[in-house]
């Protein structure tokens, strides 16, 4: 009898523990999602008076002004896309050889080089952008996409190089030797041997390069000098006003591509990859 009560108690305790665990998970997910839900409420609301919890009048007004003829959103989306694509492509091209050198070889001064390459993740971009601003004006790089794209490379490079170096660390260059001994040229070897082997790394590196460039506000603002309107720049200036539905709708337009791309590339990601730190820079 006593033994029976003991097992009963134990299973009841287990059930309670499981229920508490579920409650905690639900609470956690709820807390993380409410700010996002607030965007949906605001984006479709109209005359949403206090203390109504849910907007009683729904409206597409904010969305209409986003696609209206005088809207700056299309221009901002275009600029953000051009920048993100160009920065992603050039950062991978620039970073690939360095990643290969860091991943495959040991050489004197390697630690110093590694430290140099990751140092932009520690030093705030604001100091770098302010310092570059004056010279970029002089060189005609302020206020245009080229200059802004160049500055975006600074926060992007550490993550691209670290990610690709991690892939190259597990890469066997002998395959290239074999391909060459079978008569493949440099280009063919790269295309058919090297590229497929490091492809998952390129996907992750590109994901972070895109995300960091796409979300970049202060560097664009300081170097773009008000001439380069990207989505974060437009959203930031809209956010200083009080048109909540428009702010919310614009935020959703801004965030949607990032979430979509993350979902599409999630299978390449692992929390242990050094690139994951890029999420902290958005």
């Amino acid at each position, binding site marked *: 009898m006593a033994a029976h009560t003991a097992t009963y108690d134990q299973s009841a305790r287990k059930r309670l523990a499981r229920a508490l665990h579920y409650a905690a998970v639900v609470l956690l*997910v709820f807390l993380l999602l409410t700010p996002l839900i607030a965007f949906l409420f605001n984006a479709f609301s109209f005359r949403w008076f206090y203390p109504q919890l849910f907007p009683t009048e729904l409206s597409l007004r904010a969305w209409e002004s986003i696609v209206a003829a005088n809207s700056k959103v299309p221009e901002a989306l275009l600029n953000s896309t051009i920048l993100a694509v160009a920065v992603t492509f050039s950062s991978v091209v620039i970073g690939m050889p360095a990643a290969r050198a860091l991943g495959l070889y040991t050489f004197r001064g390697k630690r110093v080089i590694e430290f140099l390459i990751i140092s932009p993740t520690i030093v*705030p971009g604001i100091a770098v952008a302010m310092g570059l601003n*004056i010279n970029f004006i002089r060189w005609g790089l302020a206020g245009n996409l080229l200059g802004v794209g160049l500055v975006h490379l600074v926060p992007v490079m550490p993550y691209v190089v670290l990610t690709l170096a991690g892939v190259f660390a597990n890469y066997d260059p002998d395959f290239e030797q074999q391909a060459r001994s079978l008569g493949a040229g440099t280009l063919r070897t790269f295309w058919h041997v090297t590229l497929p082997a490091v492809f998952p790394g390129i996907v992750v590196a590109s994901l972070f390069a895109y995300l960091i460039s796409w979300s970049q506000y202060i560097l664009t603002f300081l170097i773009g000098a008000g001439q380069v309107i990207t989505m974060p720049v437009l*959203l930031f200036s809209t*956010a200083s006003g009080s048109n*909540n539905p428009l702010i919310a709708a614009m935020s959703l337009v801004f965030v949607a591509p990032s979430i979509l791309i993350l979902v599409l590339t999630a299978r390449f990601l692992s929390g242990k990859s050094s690139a994951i730190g890029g999420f902290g820079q958005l």
Partner: protein
Amino acid sequence: MTFWDRWRIPIMLAPTLAVIVFLFLGGLAYGALVSLGWQPIIGRTEISLRAYHNIMFSEQYAEVFWQGLALTIWVSVGSTVISAMLALATALLLRRSFFGKRLATFLYQLNLPVPHVVAAIGILFLFSQSGLLSRTGAQLGLFDFPRDFPVVVKDKLGIGMILSFVWKEVPFVGVIVLAVLQSLGVDYEDLARSLGANRWQRFLYVILPLVMPGLLSGSILVFAFTFGSYEVPAILGVRFPRTLTVTAVRFFRNPDLNARTEGMAISIIISIIVFFLVLGYMWLSRRTVRGD
């Protein structure tokens, strides 16, 4: 040794180092020169620490600077510590196997690609005096007017900023910790359990030391980012005190080019503080935690 063998590695490193040296170090170095008063464009070529002295000790700016520094440290240290603790707790929560774990983990990571500008706006929608939380309270009969709701965004204590950073960084650090936990499996804990360790002892002596390196490196990134972050304090801050980044940008945007010297000095101070705090932290953590 052929030319290629000898110069291969420097040539491979060159493009990346060009970006780092010219844009990153070059920007910093030129910024440091400007902060020392070097501005040939407006005919100033003498080098001095006047701007630093001016912002730190002059009657006009001293209070702005020191109060701003205190706010910046408070917000970034507070955000980092809270985020790290909640990240560990939530990672442990999601580590257990339960029905719906995949969905919960997916939703946990959903805000990772959300930029800080958007996070700050979300916190505004939620915690402002007429925000969702205040409306919920009003429905429950707690408040009659928006003004009854406590000011937690655009507040002097930076609570809104901390909320915004914590919301963003908990999943960020959590994902790093979760990955470590999953790669460990349960072997170590089973071993500790078989040796008679209770739940608390297993956490303190087995799990914590194993996740510590990941937790620390995530926290370093969070601290460095929050200390130098601009968007969140600009959206969720007040006129006084302002964080150092916001003050620096205001100086920098002043039409009077002389003010750039002060703005630049503040951002150099921010960089120096972050750099040395991070170095010190890494040195300390390497002494107390053996990462390998």
